[in-house]
């Protein structure tokens, strides 16, 4: 995965949205502009394994900025769209 999330201070919502969109686009073999924030993952063709791929990619990217960044598996059920995922990551980073 190639996304550059920049420095910790630049991790605002727009940066996280770009990161999530970029990672999901790579997994689904589409372009980031094809990713709509509000379309449910399953409608976009992202099954449970694709979401696990996304989570692992996000953890890998964000771990370089926020040590020990981790997405809890228990929280995955509540994430049904890119918007959910971005909001979740933003909230986690604010707590970090």
């Amino acid at each position, binding site marked *: 995965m190639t996304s550059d999330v920049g420095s910790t201070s630049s991790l605002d919502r727009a940066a996280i949205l770009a990161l999530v969109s970029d990672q999901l686009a790579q997994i689904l*073999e589409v372009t980031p502009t094809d990713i709509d924030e509000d379309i449910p993952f399953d409608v976009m*063709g992202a099954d449970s*394994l694709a979401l*696990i*791929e996304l*989570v692992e990619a996000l953890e890998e990217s964000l771990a370089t900025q926020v040590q020990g960044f981790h997405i809890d*598996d228990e929280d995955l059920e509540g994430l049904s769209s890119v918007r959910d995922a971005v909001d979740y990551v933003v909230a986690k980073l604010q707590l970090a």
Partner: protein
Amino acid sequence: MTLPIALDAMGGDFAPQEIIKGARRAVDELGLQVTLVGVPERMGDPLGLEVVACSEVIEMDDEPGSSVRKKKDSSLVRAAELVRDGKASAFVSAGNTGATMASALLRMGRLPGVLRPCIATPIPNVGRPPCTMVDAGANAECSPEMLVQFAKLAAAFASARFAIPAPTVGLLSIGEESTKGTPLVKETHELLSADAGVNFFGNVEGRDLIPSPVDVIVTDGFTGNVALKTLELQFVFTTVLAAIDTNDETRAAGHALAPYLMPTVTTLTPEYQGGAMLLGLNGICVISHGASNDTAIMNALRVAAEMDAAGVVEKMRTAIRPDQG
């Protein structure tokens, strides 16, 4: 230098004893190199084989995706990592199928351009090489684009593994005509017909599974899995055996036929097949039957070695991205 095959020693109904016995036989009888991956205190005697130690096991009833994330030091995950890290040529497991696929996908990764990995199963044929059926159960719901990729991956596999120059591809449907089938089948038919990278035969039906007129049969994972289980032909075998055992005359006929029937019957058994192949990944992964005995494991290792020797991964890479081959 030939790399060893990483074998999940903890996966399967009869693990670890049958798994280790199968590995030992593969070394002794086939001359293969095998590395066992397992929890030493639960493995017993490794029969002189190299062991990569881990501390966890993904059980048969564990949820595939989350178990791979939670059990990072499991035999399945570590075996896939050996392939990823260039320390093994392939990995074989008779354990949790979903977790095997998740481990392979998350650790080895997909080949560039591949939408989803799929499961390929060779079906014995009559008078010609086996027919490769794909998807045998990895993706219950598919798009037409996924089926076209599965066709290309399976054709690349069949070409490398069975030395078929330009494998013919059939699309499983309920009639030969292009107008027959579900919207998925009809749209896939259209795409396959227009794709110069596929030697498309047209639709095939359930009766074409054995013997098959094509080298590859493509379908979605739900249909493929149902078809595959139906093909195990337990009912037919049981019925034939019962008929042969009717009286002295039929038993004598059975003795006469046995030398001609047994080679075919043998190739239909899970023990001989060894396992199913995951296609579309950046490495080789063979998923062996959960009830594998030592013979099945030895044959799964043989299949993995043959796939490696045939360069299946590189052929799949080129099939999906011919411009980068």
